[in-house]
């Protein structure tokens, strides 16, 4: 990296937004170098205590990593700091002064900015527009006329954006539309956006989840550069290897509470995991496998239509759990959807129980005994406004639960009730609206919906995303039972811990194809990541 300052001096924002940003410097001197001090932060959502009396502090010029399992409260804490959400109780001091953040505007004024886990770009605008969104550079005005109209100074914002892009290693014109960028490049734009702000504190929330190896390296260089120039960085990641590499200090959260803090020399993967899970890693739910050698699902020379890579060949046996691992954008969901008949593959054969099946539509897949539990249960898996009974009965209505188009209500109720008991779904009665259930129970309803169809092959896309630990274990138990009854499962998962613990075999995808398979004795985070970043093309 260059020895230039990361944020150029002429990267001026609008005058009104700028004033408080400069104030901090003097006050900070008498404050032991703490930029942010948070004490007793709590956040209560209806039914959930997301954060409980969290204390933490951030020094000037340090990289603080915040780690914890999904749902440990990291994102909630960061949203409070970035003004997207506010705390239920507790105080935050910025530069020694107690503040109430509350809005994004205010956070920006205080010099705090968040690079989001999920991309927050407007893909209909250019890179420059996105970088300066909400803080557009306005012509300085000819006699005040232009200022009234508040016209955007395109030339100067693009010039400045290109400076920033160089720093994050993106060599593209600032006038490029964001929709024409890869996911990885979009992430870099997010970072450039954070740099453009007169930020004192930059929060990175899972920044590398969709970056390639070289892009990740570039990011680390950027973070180091930030640190060297007196910025403070909060770094949130699941990738403990990365954390070890980049962080000066680690704060570990579990179930909304701080379970410990590690200083630079104490940071080891094992130490972090111990604090994260509060138990030994071996205790991660150990799934019992009942694998037979009968091939349930076989895919030959299959080419994913939305992300055509090299042909895919796969076998899944009865009772086997084959986990599809890979980074975001590797084409796993697209692969599952093409198998299920939502999109037509470019080429390839699908065999179920060694018989070739033609799948042109999900109904063909369902008739062949292959079902898909989709990734976003609210979007694809559940009719959230409908009651539990109808949700479970839905897929069977046409063939099994009706005659001449008339629904057999008794039969539908019977099937639903059976599933509710079998899956231990907690609800008042079958007419409860699906939306009012907890995340875990919702997921069980989705599973119940498909299990009532007695599948032979089950495609599960991120089956435990966003549900709590207890519910997760129940989903695993369920998978165990499915395994016993000889169902072949193809599970997409991005949670490394889960990948490593539940799989019989791991198939890793990258760029629309399977780059390799791992047997249990080869299971390791490193091996998975290596295959997940194994570019097969473009050199």
């Amino acid at each position: 990296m260059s020895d230039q300052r990361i944020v150029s001096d002429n990267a001026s924002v609008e005058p009104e937004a700028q004033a408080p940003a400069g104030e901090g410097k003097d006050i900070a001197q008498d404050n032991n170098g703490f930029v942010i001090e948070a004490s007793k932060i709590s956040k209560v959502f209806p039914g959930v205590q997301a954060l409980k009396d969290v204390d933490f502090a951030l020094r000037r010029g340090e990289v603080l990593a915040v780690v914890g399992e999904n749902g440990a409260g990291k994102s909630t804490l960061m949203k409070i700091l970035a003004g997207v959400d506010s705390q239920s109780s507790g105080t935050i001091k910025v530069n020694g002064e107690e503040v109430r953040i509350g809005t994004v505007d205010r956070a920006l004024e205080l010099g705090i900015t968040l690079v989001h886990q999920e991309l927050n770009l407007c893909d209909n605008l250019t890179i420059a527009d996105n970088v300066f969104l909400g803080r557009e550079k306005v012509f300085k005005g000819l006699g005040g006329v232009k200022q009234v109209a508040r016209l955007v100074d395109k030339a100067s914002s693009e010039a400045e954006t290109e400076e920033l892009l160089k720093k994050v290693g993106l060599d593209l014109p600032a006038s490029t539309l964001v929709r024409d960028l890869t996911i990885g490049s979009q992430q870099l734009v997010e970072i450039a956006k954070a740099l453009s702000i007169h930020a004192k504190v930059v929060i990175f929330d899972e920044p590398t989840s969709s970056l390639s190896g070289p892009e990740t390296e570039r990011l680390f260089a950027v973070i180091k550069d930030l640190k060297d120039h007196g910025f403070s960085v909060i770094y949130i990641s699941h990738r403990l290897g990365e954390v070890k590499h980049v962080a000066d200090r680690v704060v570990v959260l579990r179930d909304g509470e701080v379970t410990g803090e590690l200083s630079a020399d104490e940071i080891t993967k094992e130490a972090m995991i111990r604090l994260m899970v509060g138990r030994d890693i071996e205790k991660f739910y150990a799934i019992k496998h009942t694998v037979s050698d009968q091939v349930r699902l076989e895919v030959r020379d299959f080419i994913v239509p939305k992300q055509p890579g090299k042909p895919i060949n796969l076998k899944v046996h009865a009772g086997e759990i084959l986990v599809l691992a890979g980074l975001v954008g590797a084409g796993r969901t697209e692969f599952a959807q093409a198998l299920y008949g939502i999109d037509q593959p470019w080429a390839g054969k699908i065999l179920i129980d060694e018989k070739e099946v033609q799948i042109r539509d999900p109904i063909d897949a369902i008739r062949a005994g292959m079902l898909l539990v989709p990734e976003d249960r609210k979007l694809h898996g559940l009719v959230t406004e409908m009651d539990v009974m109808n949700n479970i009965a839905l897929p069977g209505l046409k063939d099994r639960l009706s005659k001449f188009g008339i629904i057999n209500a008794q039969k539908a109720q019977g099937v639903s009730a059976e599933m509710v008991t079998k899956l231990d779904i907690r609800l008042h009665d079958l007419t409860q609206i699906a939306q009012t259930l907890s995340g875990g129970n919702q997921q069980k309803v989705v599973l119940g919906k498909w299990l009532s169809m007695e599948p032979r092959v089950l495609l599960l896309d991120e089956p435990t995303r966003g549900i709590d630990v207890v519910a997760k274990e129940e989903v695993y138990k369920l998978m165990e039972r499915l395994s016993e009854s000889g169902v072949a499962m193809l599970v997409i998962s991005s949670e490394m811990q889960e990948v490593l613990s539940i799989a019989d075999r791991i198939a890793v995808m990258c760029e629309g194809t399977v780059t390799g398979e791992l047997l249990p004795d080869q299971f390791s985070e490193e091996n998975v990541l290596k295959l997940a970043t194994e570019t097969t093309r473009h050199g």
Partner: protein
Amino acid sequence: MVNMKRIAGISILLLAIVAITTIVDVRFLSPYNVRNVLRWTGLFGILSLGVAFVIITGGIDLSMGSVVAMIGTFSAYLMVRQGMPVGPTLLLMLALSLLLGLAHGLLITKVRVQPFVVTLCGLFIYRGMARFVVGDMTQGYGTGFIGLKNLVKSRFPQSFWPGTPPQFIMDWSIPMPFVILLILALILALVLNKSVYGRHLLALGNNERAARYSGIHTHRIIIIAYMISSGFAGLAGLLFSLDLNTVQPSASGQMYELYAIAGCVVGGISLRGGEGNIAGVIIGTAIVRVLYNAINIAGIATQLEFAVLGVVILIGVSVDEIVKMIGEKRRIMESADPEALAKKASA
């Protein structure tokens, strides 16, 4: 880039309709007819421009036709029947229509009623108010108000020509409503493409969460969009009433919201929000107006006019989607693995 292609596409559609109609009957391109088409494009285009801003936010405004009727009726009623001076009446009407937009915006952002519902209720309420206040009586300006009527009746540059203009100028002067439309379009294009507000509007329509996270006051942006929409509907209402010289509270402006939305859709404003450009809206409106005119000129049975309009719009929009799909396919093909391409070819 996408926008330029889109504009080129609909311009070709417009030219094709013009060419075909001219071949059927050359009088289509006579100065008289061209003036008429431009005048109607001007009047209806104002509505389309207004609603375009709302559609970019991802909303919809169904109340425009009723606002046209109400403002038209009230203007004539106040100036003619109640003898209110022109200036204050116009100011009052401007304030009233902006107020309606403000109310829509507040209900949508703060009370969180869906835009469809809010403006549908507006459609009913304003029609009822227009009819009730004047007791369903047709309002008109009679023979007076010449100055005001020049807003729609005069032509540029003919009406501003010192002395008698040459025949060419007489023939090809542009009707004032179209001039007004062009001026408004210029201002709105500047706002949409160059101003901070326009940037925020596009961002909001595309990804509301991203806009909010960037510290944009999304509510304010939405409210202003609805105020633009209602304000333009009010202006159009005044101009329509002046043009016809009478306004029927129960009949005028019916279905105009749908013509306005049709103009936007043809012009490439996606109902999903976040997409759109001003030039497209004007060409889209012109296509709708030219089609109506062409049906009459070409002697197609008028019973078929809605059918023809529907089919042409549908073809235009479908072709656009198909072009997008082909583009997407090409993008996938370009990024595909060579081996995959070979397999596909042999499959």
